């Protein structure tokens, strides 16, 4: 088990290297010199030239990538010029490990830029996750048990609506009615947990609900389908034949098997969401990774974009690992190897 986790983590590191290499090649092999975006209106060919040098864009892509990877581990300086360091140390910007590069657009180290945003996206993702698991799986179980009834049809129908509705629409509707018109909750905004847990929760409610409704819709159908499939299994008949009462057959013998694939799906969905919910963060002006991803892409802010890609990839890799380990714990037939 331990060996398995270590092996998977090492594999994950390799995967991240690969992801960063591919993004690097894709971005820097493009026809546009990223240094052009570093100085805005004051750009002169000389200035661009200077920035290109300072940021190392003049080097071959592979070498740049190498420097970048080393920088993540050791930190780096911009420009990395030992001579300049002695003569004019004040012109050098240091970026300490883990250094994800320097963004001239925001005149900030990418790491510094990302750091405060991660808890925002993570809070949102986890809150949404808890909500959608309760709503989705709960409704799915009810629908499966009452198969064919009006309640079943209503649940499946409603979930279809939410599934089809873009989060922009759901989010805006919730915002309009719940927060503004009916004033049931304060207008959503991000308040750090350390500042006020209550406000943190209140601020999270609507954006998390927006996401949760969308995901829950899928989970209703997924849960319902898996439970119905499991209900046909022979071992439930065995359980009944030995005298297990109906409710216990459901909770002890049916759900455990039916939920296994749902755990997998949930883990992967959560992993992807930890990296930021682009639209939802935009709607509720939440300062998370998703919102940043949009603005950095718009401004051709390559270092920031690559940084976000790497953070998201890390979340997904970890979520995958957690899912696989959980899967092995839930289902003894799965051998971790």
């Amino acid at each position, binding site marked *: 088990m331990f060996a398995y986790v270590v092996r998977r983590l090492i594999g994950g590191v390799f995967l991240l290297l690969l992801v960063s290499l591919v993004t690097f090649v894709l971005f820097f092999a493009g026809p546009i010199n990223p240094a052009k975006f570093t100085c805005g209106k004051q750009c002169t060919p000389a200035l661009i030239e200077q920035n290109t040098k300072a940021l190392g864009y003049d080097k071959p892509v592979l070498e740049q990538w190498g420097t970048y990877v080393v920088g993540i581990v050791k930190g780096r300086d911009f420009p990395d010029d030992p001579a300049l360091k002695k003569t004019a140390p004040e012109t050098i910007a240091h970026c300490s490990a883990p250094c994800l590069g320097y963004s001239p657009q925001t005149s900030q180290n990418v790491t510094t830029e990302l750091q405060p945003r991660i808890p925002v996206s993570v809070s949102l993702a986890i809150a949404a996750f808890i909500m959608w698991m309760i709503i989705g799986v709960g409704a799915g179980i009810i629908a499966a048990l009452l198969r064919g009834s009006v309640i079943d049809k209503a649940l499946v129908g409603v979930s279809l609506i939410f599934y089809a509705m873009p989060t922009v629409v759901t989010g805006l509707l919730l915002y309009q009615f719940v927060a503004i018109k009916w004033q049931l909750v304060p207008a959503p905004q991000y308040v750090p947990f350390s500042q006020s847990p209550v406000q943190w929760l209140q601020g999270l409610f609507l954006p998390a609900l927006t996401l949760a409704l969308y995901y829950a819709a899928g989970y209703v159908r997924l849960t319902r389908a898996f439970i119905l499939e499991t209900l046909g299994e022979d*071992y439930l*008949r*065995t359980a*009944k034949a*030995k*005298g297990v009462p109906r409710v216990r057959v459901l909770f002890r013998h049916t759900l455990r*098997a039916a939920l296994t694939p749902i755990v997998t799906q949930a883990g992967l969905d959560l992993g992807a969401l930890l990296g930021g919910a682009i639209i939802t963060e935009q709607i509720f002006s939440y300062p998370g990774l998703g919102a940043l991803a949009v603005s950095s892409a718009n401004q051709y802010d390559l270092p920031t974009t690559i940084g976000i890609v790497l953070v998201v990839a890390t979340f997904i890799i970890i979520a995958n690992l957690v899912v696989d380990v959980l899967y092995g714990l*839930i289902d003894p037939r799965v051998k971790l190897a």
Partner: protein
Amino acid sequence: MTESPLLEVDNLSVEFLQRGAATVNAVRGISYHVNRGEFLGIVGESGSGKSVSSMAVMGLLPSTARVTGDIRYRGESLLERDDKTLSKLRGKEISMVFQDPLSALTPVYTVGNQITEALKLHDSGLSDKAADARVIELLTTVGIPAPERRAKAFPHEFSGGMRQRVMIAMAIANDPDLIIADEPTTALDVTIQAQILEVLQKAKEVTGAAVVLITHDLGVVAGNVDRVAVMYAGRLVETGTVEQVLTAPRMPYTMGLLRSVPNMQTAGRSRLVPMEGRPPSLAALPPGCPFEPRCPASIDACSTAEPPLVQIGGTGPGSREVACIRADEFERGTLGIADVFPHPEPVPPEEQAQVKGATVLQVTDLKRHFPLTKGVVFRKTIGSVKAVDGITFDIEEKQVLGLVGESGCGKSTTILEILELARPQSGSIELNGVDVASLNSSARLKLRGDVQVVFQDPMAAIDPRLSIEDIVSEPLTVRGASRSERSAKVRELLETVGLDPAMSGRYPHQFSGGQRQRIGIARALATDPKLLILDEPVSALDVSIQAGVINLLQDLKDSRGLSYLFVAHDLAVVRQIADVVAVMYLGRIVELGEADNVFSHPQHPYTQALLSAVPIPDPRVERTRQRVLLDGDLPSPTQEIPGCNFHGRCPLFKILDAAHQERCIQTDPSLRSVHNSSVACHFAEENPLRVTGVDITEKEKS
């Protein structure tokens, strides 16, 4: 002392209401009873309502079922009880053992956990420690080795036989008074089946419970039960003691069942009696006797009203019940089983193919080992699976070699090696005197026509969108025959295998299992082969249909002089058709000889165990038979076993003295000639084990 029966089923009917389709009358007014401590067998073809009627007793039918009539347990009606009170009864008073234990145990809990659950449900005061102790005790009772350790294992870590033992342990956990076992041994190897039936008998002794054994196998019934009830199309059609029903049946359906299954002791002496047709649809029953369309004894009156189940032979202890208009004639003896189901005649001598007895297939010291590797990037060989480990046999013209053995012993690998027609890993394969290793590709293609194969379900691997004509003629197309040639050949072949040539434009799904197997045989015959390799050709078929296909194969052999390599796990079928038998165990042939010789005087302890595990549908034989039981399952094929690879399970080994045992452990016995057969056992001459029962051959006069 008229004690009321333990279970009384009174005029029970079960209907399944189906949306948009006719109601299925799965069970139609059946009545039977089970006395305390009695062993009742319920026999019938698939779909006859056996499972549905017993699920009704347990109250486990789906909500679409409408149950009428009455079921009384200890005089109290069960049908009116709600699910809650019924679940108190289930597993405590009445318990059930199901078929296919692979899917019948919850995969995510250990077997110990599942048995404990059964215990605690009915005894909430039971302490954990006491429950654990009881689990170990139960697992020991059903013969699970190392029960402390195995209790912590999950169902998937057990073999099929072991899982079935766990099911039985769970069923007897609360000392029930009635155990219903629904096909508990179907899909298990015969040796394992024999073990499980033994465990079931033991469970019955330990608990004193009555047992209802549901099966489609008359042989299983013969040696175990007191009374038999035969079901057909949702009805009971014959009941009586096991002797009455199996040795002197009074209902044509029972007769047909008995005559269509080969009896391992008598098989091969005459052709089997096919019982063509299928049971009627339970959603659209004809007005008369449901067996009428298939009954050779039917008369006009049979199609007007359904005969009720009535007592014949008085009301005394010898009384029995039969549902047949002509039961009286059978009872008086004016109509006999031989009149209704005469044995078909074999191919007359003048139509038999004349052969010189040349060798068609010669396999010499064939080996196929599969390396076992570990690791993904750097593969290490950590051992090998000896799937086939040096086997030698030959098949002559118009000869049938039966290859038998438990699943996993290497039968399929042997077949695949022969079909490759390529140089084997080790040893040699000669077809018609030509060593296949010497063939170039065009010669190989030519030779391929000489050896064809028929699988268990020949259509499984075929595109369902092809018509029968395309399927049968495919081997000819490959060889470049013209369209009209092919068409003519297809018609001829379909005729040969007993199908209407006009059906050649139809598609596989329009045919029944037996017909599909005939199509498979027609296809195999397309290239006029000399050797047919038949891999479990009838094991997927209902017994009544099996007989027709076996007869066809025997006729084809006789009239065309074909040779067969016949692989099957059903030994009675093998005795019916084979001239020579080879018994395989873990990649080796352990006994090889004339079929009659091997079946009547098996000499290798494994053959003895295998034969004695086969149930014979005759209670007189079953009562007097001596059994040689095997321990445990087939060992893992990766295991290296020194000396004789059978010694871990060998019943002879167990009764040898230490010096002799040493020889078994040290030295690998090779195949040598003992009393006209070849046997691979050091002590074949001294083997005191016997498997014979009463020889019924003289008594059988028809």
